[in-house]
């Protein structure tokens, strides 16, 4: 265990993140910027030269994206998707953390639920999209349902694990001062479990965007996924890629936001352990 931390600490030191703004701020280090630059250049050149229908050059894709933003056609699906994302992720966070806390604290709850949580976690989440459709029909509800399926089980498992790895010495210390069950929960278990819970939320954040798109691709009625689906049916690769670039930006943004909440909330962690979670 100490080896892992020592190696990780060394790794952390080898990759200092200078506080540069702008493009570098996003990428964070020069090899990343160079690599991205090369990739985009490659994309542009091959796209122009090869003239594959499925591989339009980067400039065209970017152009299409700005066009869609400019004439506003992307705005309704975008807001629709983001709303679904927020609602679905919100439901997952609230219920996922609650169930996770209960499972972590009470052996009986864990014993009752753990195999089902594990089963639903390992199964391909999209396979439940038809079920969501059968219950909710068309519209945003089944998509929200899919997002919940994509994210809630990761949150539950991470939260359960977070509670179970609270050092027993701390809980005992609380009991030795006659703290009630609830006080131990509030004052010891929840703060101690917070870092790992936040790690679960970060994982879930990326999955949420994936669930949003996949759900919308399947239901194909509203949102960005529907736009991709319709563009795909027309073999309009430019639009597909443009929306994909937009989706990736959303995904990065979501993870960034969660990370910053994470650092704010777990400001008490010593430096060597940050950024490794």
């Amino acid at each position, binding site marked *: 265990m100490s080896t*892992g931390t020592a190696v990780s600490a060394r790794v952390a030191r080898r990759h200092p993140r200078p506080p540069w703004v702008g493009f570098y701020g996003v990428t964070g280090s020069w090899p990343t910027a*160079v690599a991205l630059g090369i990739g985009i250049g490659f994309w542009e050149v091959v796209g122009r030269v090869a003239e594959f229908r499925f591989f339009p050059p980067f400039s065209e894709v970017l152009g299409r994206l700005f066009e869609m933003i400019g004439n506003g056609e992307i705005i309704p699906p975008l807001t629709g998707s983001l709303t679904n994302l927020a609602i679905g992720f919100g439901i997952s966070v609230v219920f996922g953390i609650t169930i996770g806390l209960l499972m972590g604290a009470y052996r009986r709850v864990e014993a*009752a639920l753990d195999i089902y949580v594990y089963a639903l976690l390992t199964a391909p989440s999209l396979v439940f999209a038809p079920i969501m459709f*059968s219950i909710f029909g068309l519209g945003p509800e089944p998509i929200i349902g899919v997002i919940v399926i994509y994210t809630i089980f990761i949150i539950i498992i991470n939260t359960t694990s977070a509670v179970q790895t609270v050092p027993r010495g701390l809980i005992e210390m609380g009991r030795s001062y006659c703290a009630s069950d609830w006080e131990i929960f509030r004052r010891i278990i929840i703060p101690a479990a917070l870092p790992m819970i936040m790690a679960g939320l970060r994982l879930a954040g990326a999955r949420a965007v994936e669930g949003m798109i*996949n759900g919308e691709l399947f239901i194909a009625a509203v949102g960005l996924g529907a736009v991709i689906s319709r563009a795909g049916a027309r073999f309009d690769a430019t639009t597909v890629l443009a929306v994909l670039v937009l989706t990736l930006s959303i995904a990065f943004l979501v993870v960034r936001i969660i990370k910053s909440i994470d650092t704010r909330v777990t400001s008490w962690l010593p430096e060597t352990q940050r950024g490794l979670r």
Partner: protein
Amino acid sequence: MSSAASPQPIAMGNGRPRAGRSLVARILDSKAFLRLLTLAVIAAIWQVYAVMVGGLLIPTFDGTVFAFVELLLDGKFWRAVWVSNQAMLIGFAITVILGIPIGLFMGRYRPAEAFTDVYINILLVTPMAALIPLIIMAIGFGLNARVLLVILFAIPMVIVNSRAGVRQVDPTLIEMAQSFGATERSIWWRILLPGSMPAVMTGIRIGLSRSLTAMVVIELLLIAVGLGGLIINFRGAFQPESLYAVVIFVVFEALLLIMVARWLERRLVPWGREGVLATD
């Protein structure tokens, strides 16, 4: 309890079972019973909802169970299973053959990692399903398209875990080998490969899970063959019992594959239990 006023500690659900409780109490408290209880509660809520509220596409619990058994006895079903899994197995094999060396290489040679890191991150976050139309445009609707999607889904995980596996090998071990005059090849063979095995196996397990996901996703979204095709067909034919039954089958298959992968992991790397996301 024969002692005078012995304290009852707050178990918080983690108390040791006390010998001397009645048999009934112990059965009621056992894992098996609690799990069955959950299943019973789910089945009850399901049945009540199906009967009271219902809907064209809501099956009953018992209906689903019967449909499940029927499916297992149907030759057509197993053909669909084979069609689906073909793509998955081929795709998974290619993923492993390509992904592990790439990941190991990235882990060992830092410049490679620094430059490719951003692309791995992008791959990890991209909803691969959105690329399906592009794949179709490039290589059509056949087996190749499905195999390619499986690879796209699974390979980032295999690469990331293999890379992490190499990185977490204790540098002291490498130095030790070098002090005994080991060549790069020996270092790989004797230190890096065995040392990164646990993480590589984790990557394989996760990659297997992602392969299954990919298999289902492309069939549900575009190429309606195999199991995904069955689901689409059952939906169109308003046969929700069978639809739900196929979904349950997919869940079971996922569980089975994971159990196999974990068993393999335990047999091959009994000494290591570290995953990429171990926060030790």
